[in-house]
């Protein structure tokens, strides 16, 4: 049939169909004009149409592709989850799908990423995994981590959550596309390190850090994504990374996998450090340390056994090729700005950057950087022309760095270092010579100790406690000293260990815990290896490390080390030795911090005090130190009168012996201040806190944990005196320091977070308060023993929040738990027990159980009053107010009036 004719036929056919059946025949006759063929065709077709019935109406295969089309269409277009409309699928992983979505009721139409378990993959283990990811994301709030925005369950009960949608390019692509310079790349990388460090501080190991999981937005902000296989750590795992056991999850990206991931061994934060190393390598060279091999097995072998080429070597190989293939070709994989030629790039990478990348990529987790922060710090040092930690040391290197940075200080410092090392080398050479002549081991040790005594004297120059405010260069001296000890004393392990320990202790004093721990562990390792267990120096190392680990909240390992140290010392020196007293004190601190085993801690302190007084006399600083500790314990157990005597005694002795401008004196002032504050004697406490903060700021610096403590204490005092905003401000400042120093999971940090939460609660900022109070409780539950009374602070805090929100049903279990804890922990009346009772009373008031409420509140009020002996103490007044609220609710105006009269105008 001719096309024209066919078109005509189609037209008429369709017009005819629109007519009633009876009219069609006439229409056709007219419409086809004289064309008989057309007319015949049309009639035949219409007749076929009428008798065809359901012919072809249903698809040959029911459902068929159409069903699929509609499913897919749903996926793309109209499917909704909760209030979100899904726009398109962004990706599909082993256990979840991610969609680009938009909130339907959002007027700004902000794009988000929505992650959900697909129906066909709904399994219990995946749900658990999914919930963990959601929980992990919820705990992370960082500019460089894609944020959790919302979550819920779909209509069919599948869990989902919503995150920031990051519009960006993979980090390596971003660098190349924008032709970032090496410095810009390093800056970008350091930002990624900060995000990883933050995750680690929140006890999260990402486990899948790679270029494709880091997107950089248009404004140059890198964002870490996909915590899909991330792992939540227990806090202990941080202090002792090697002891952590993880489930065996094979990494998704072999090129970025660490040896321990390949082996299915323990996964720690060090695993992320390794992957960061791979990323750094990629950003600097455009290559991976281990390019994909032919088979997975070969790949694994390479990761486990081969040293990657140094970045500068890789670049120089590529450069040669590039040079041969002329200048017109686009540059090497790393697109340096045109002014940097391949040879320059190689020179740029040789040395520091090689060493930094290689240190992050070490096979043994414990030999990598101890944290992402340290990796980042080393890069900063490189960029500022300071010596880096990862360097293979050499004199020429140090000298060149030094000259570059500071021509004036060089003479002084060079002399200082020459003196240090010259002396050490001299002594060890002598020791070795003499050792040949006499009893080897014994003599070497004597000599070693001489060296140490001398060097420790010099190092104590940089211990801020000895020098007032002149600690500016301390860090520098230490860092250099550490490198030097590491390399140049390698043949003298015993001397090396002593110096390492000295440095470790000073790092600890400076609040640089990561570095301190690394040094102290190394010292202990060396001593154990070369002296064996039961040696006095091993005991000393165990003691130092134990003290540090306690400060970091790793109580179990700390206790184990300190007990071992104590046993050794008792065996070697007898029960009356000052070193034994020292061990007892340190052990008391741990058992006190860990479980608040007050009674056993008190016994330990008193025993130590006795030994120390006998050995050194009453005015000795060591005696004062024990007194301070004992004072704190007395406060905690509510024995205020005894405590005040002890604190005043300690402060006076220190003022006399050490002077006012000394961190130890500041400690004592602080302690007395805390004590007076608790008693509500704010006017007396305030100047003590200010003095303490001032000294700490000046001498220890604004980043020091002790400075954070002063901020915390002063904040608390301001809160007691009603300056809530002032308190909030100080807590926030202090929290920055403590988070940085102790890490998010530390009990101390929890305590400050809790304080911040309470201040916000009292200002009526319930929403933010709730976030902080919950966080603090979560950290404490994770890091403290279940029967630690410190848990009570958080239970009570969150309980009060629920009371403020008018949710007694939520407050009740928390407050009851606190009350039980307190009743178990304190074997005598304690204001905290009494206060908890008033809170339970308030719960009953809100529940309308007035009689029970009255009993609890009156009882609690009297308890608080008799503890503080101060009717206008804030906590006493809190109790009064709770009574007033009861009687108002109960409709007893006389009682209301009676208690109102107790409140000062």
């Amino acid at each position, binding site marked *: *049939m001719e096309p024209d004719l*066919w078109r005509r036929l*189609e037209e008429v*056919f*369709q017009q005819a*169909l629109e007519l009633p059946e009876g009219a069609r025949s006439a229409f056709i006759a007219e419409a086809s004009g004289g064309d008989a063929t057309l007319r015949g*065709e049309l009639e*035949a*077709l*219409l*007749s*076929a*149409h009428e*008798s*065809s019935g*359901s*012919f*072809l*109406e*249903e*698809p*040959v*295969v*029911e*459902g*068929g*592709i*159409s*069903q*699929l*089309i509609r*499913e*897919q*269409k749903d996926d*793309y*277009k109209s499917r909704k989850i909760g209030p979100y409309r899904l726009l398109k*699928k*962004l*990706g*599909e992983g082993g256990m979840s799908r991610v969609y680009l979505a938009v909130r339907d009721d959002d007027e700004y139409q902000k794009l988000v990423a929505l992650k959900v378990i697909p129906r066909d993959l709904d399994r219990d283990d995946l749900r658990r995994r999914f919930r963990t990811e959601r929980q992990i994301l919820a705990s992370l709030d960082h500019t460089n981590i894609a944020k959790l925005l919302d979550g819920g369950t779909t209509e069919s009960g599948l869990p989902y959550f919503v995150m920031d949608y990051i519009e960006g390019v993979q980090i390596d692509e971003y660098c190349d596309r924008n032709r970032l310079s090496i410095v810009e790349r390093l800056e970008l990388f350091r930002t990624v390190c900060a995000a990883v460090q933050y995750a680690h501080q929140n006890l999260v190991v990402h486990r899948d850090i790679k270029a494709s999981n880091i997107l950089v937005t248009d404004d140059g902000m890198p964002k870490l994504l996909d915590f899909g296989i991330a792992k939540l750590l227990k806090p202990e795992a941080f202090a002792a990374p090697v002891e952590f056991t993880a489930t065996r999850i094979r990494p998704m990206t072999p090129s970025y996998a660490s040896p321990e991931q390949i082996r299915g061994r323990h996964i720690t934060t060090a695993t992320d450090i390794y992957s960061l190393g791979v990323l750094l390598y990629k950003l600097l060279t455009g290559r991976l340390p281990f390019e994909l091999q032919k088979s997975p097995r070969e790949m694994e072998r390479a990761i486990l056994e081969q040293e990657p080429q140094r970045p500068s070597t890789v670049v120089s190989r590529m450069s040669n090729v590039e040079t041969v293939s002329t200048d017109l070709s686009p540059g090497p994989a790393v697109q340096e700005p045109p002014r940097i030629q391949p040879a320059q790039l190689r020179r740029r990478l040789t040395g520091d950057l090689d060493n930094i990348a290689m240190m992050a990529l070490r096979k043994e987790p414990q030999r990598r950087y101890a944290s992402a922060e340290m990796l980042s710090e080393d890069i900063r040092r490189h960029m500022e022309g300071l010596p880096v930690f990862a360097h293979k040391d050499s004199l020429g290197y140090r000298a060149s760095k030094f000259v570059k940075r500071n021509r004036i200080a060089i003479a002084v410092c060079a002399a200082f270092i020459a003196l240090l090392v010259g002396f050490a080398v001299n002594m060890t050479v002598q020791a070795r010579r003499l050792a040949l002549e006499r009893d080897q081991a014994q003599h070497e040790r004597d000599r070693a100790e001489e060296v140490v005594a001398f060097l420790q004297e010099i190092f104590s120059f940089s211990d801020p406690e000895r020098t007032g405010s002149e600690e500016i260069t301390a860090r520098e001296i230490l860092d250099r000293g550490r490198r030097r000890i590491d390399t140049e004393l390698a043949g003298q392990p015993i001397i090396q260990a002593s110096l390492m320990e000295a440095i470790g202790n000073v790092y600890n004093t400076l609040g640089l815990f990561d570095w301190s721990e690394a040094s102290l562990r190394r010292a202990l390792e060396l001593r154990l290896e070369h002296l064996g267990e039961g040696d006095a120096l091993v005991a000393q190392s165990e003691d130092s490390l134990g003290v540090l680990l306690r400060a970091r909240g790793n109580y179990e390992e700390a206790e184990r080390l300190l007990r071992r140290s104590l046993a050794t010392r008792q065996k070697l020196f007898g029960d009356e030795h000052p070193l034994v007293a020292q061990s007892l004190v340190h052990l008391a601190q741990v058992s006190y911090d860990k479980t608040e085993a007050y009674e056993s801690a008190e016994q330990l302190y008193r025993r130590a005090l006795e030994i120390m007084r006998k050995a050194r006399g009453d005015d000795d600083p060591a005696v004062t130190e024990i007194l301070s500790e004992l004072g704190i314990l007395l406060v905690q157990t509510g024995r205020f009168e005894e405590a005040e005597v002890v604190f005043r005694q300690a402060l006076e002795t220190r003022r006399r012996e050490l002077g006012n401008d000394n961190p130890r004196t500041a400690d004592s002032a602080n302690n007395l201040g805390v004590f007076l504050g608790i008693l509500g004697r704010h006017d007396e406490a305030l100047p003590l806190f200010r003095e303490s903060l001032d000294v700490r700021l000046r001498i220890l610096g604004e980043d020091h944990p002790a400075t954070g403590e002063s901020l915390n204490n002063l904040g608390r005092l301001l809160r007691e005196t009603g300056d809530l905003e002032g308190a909030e401000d100080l807590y926030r400042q202090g929290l920055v320091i403590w988070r940085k120093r102790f890490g998010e999971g530390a009990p101390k940090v929890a305590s400050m977070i809790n304080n911040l939460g309470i201040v916000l609660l009292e200002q009526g900022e319930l929403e933010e308060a709730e976030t902080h109070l919950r966080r603090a409780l979560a950290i404490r539950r994770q890091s403290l023993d279940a029967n630690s009374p410190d848990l009570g602070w958080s239970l009570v805090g969150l309980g009060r929040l629920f009371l403020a929100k008018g949710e007694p049903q939520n407050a009740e279990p928390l407050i009851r738990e606190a009350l039980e804890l307190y009743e178990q922990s304190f074997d005598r009346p304690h204001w905290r027990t009494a206060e908890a009772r008033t809170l339970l009373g308030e719960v009953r008031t809100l529940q309308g159980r007035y009689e029970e409420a009255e009993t609890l509140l009156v009882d609690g009020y009297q308890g608080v009053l008799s503890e503080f002996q101060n009717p206008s103490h804030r906590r006493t007044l809190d109790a009064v107010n709770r009574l007033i609220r009861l009687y108002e609710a109960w409709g007893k105006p006389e009682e209301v009036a009676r208690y109102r009269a107790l409140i000062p105008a």
Partner: protein
Amino acid sequence: MSDNSRDLTQLLVDWSAGDQEAFGELMPVVYDELHRLAARYLRRERGDHTLQTTALVHEAYIRLIDQKRVQWQNSLQFFALAAQMMRRILVDHARRKGYEKHGGQVRRVSLDDAPEVSRERAADVVAVDEALLALAEVDKELARIVELRYFGGFKSEEIGELMGVSVPTVTRKFSLAKAWLYRYLASGGDSGA
């Protein structure tokens, strides 16, 4: 997803953008994949045609196309392609089962071993297939509409979306195609035109 999926996806995108060469490259791959899968399904199949056909195309789709990189329109194209493939596979299947045509008769061939394909709608798929070939010589568009609807299960809306015409147009064109095919089959393969 296999490595060549990228190429396929690109082909699909290019094809959607009007590149006919891309279609030429795309089709054999999709067909092979569908056929391989179909063979597997049909071998073990004892009745549940519905489910398996869907699963089959779905699997092919997931396997071959990187969904991050295609738009809905591309996907629709893919399904149209799949409908075409399904037609071939079902016809081949029916032929292998021995339902050979008998010259000149209206061939009532049905998929007896696929019971959910009911006898009324039935689908003598081999006959319809041949009739469609004849229709395509007269009007390709009509043949395509029938193919999408009958072998692919497309709804009028989807056909409209795919071909860029309105739903009533699709409906009207289908009526004509249906009448034409019915007449063709009823008259034993003589379209009369």
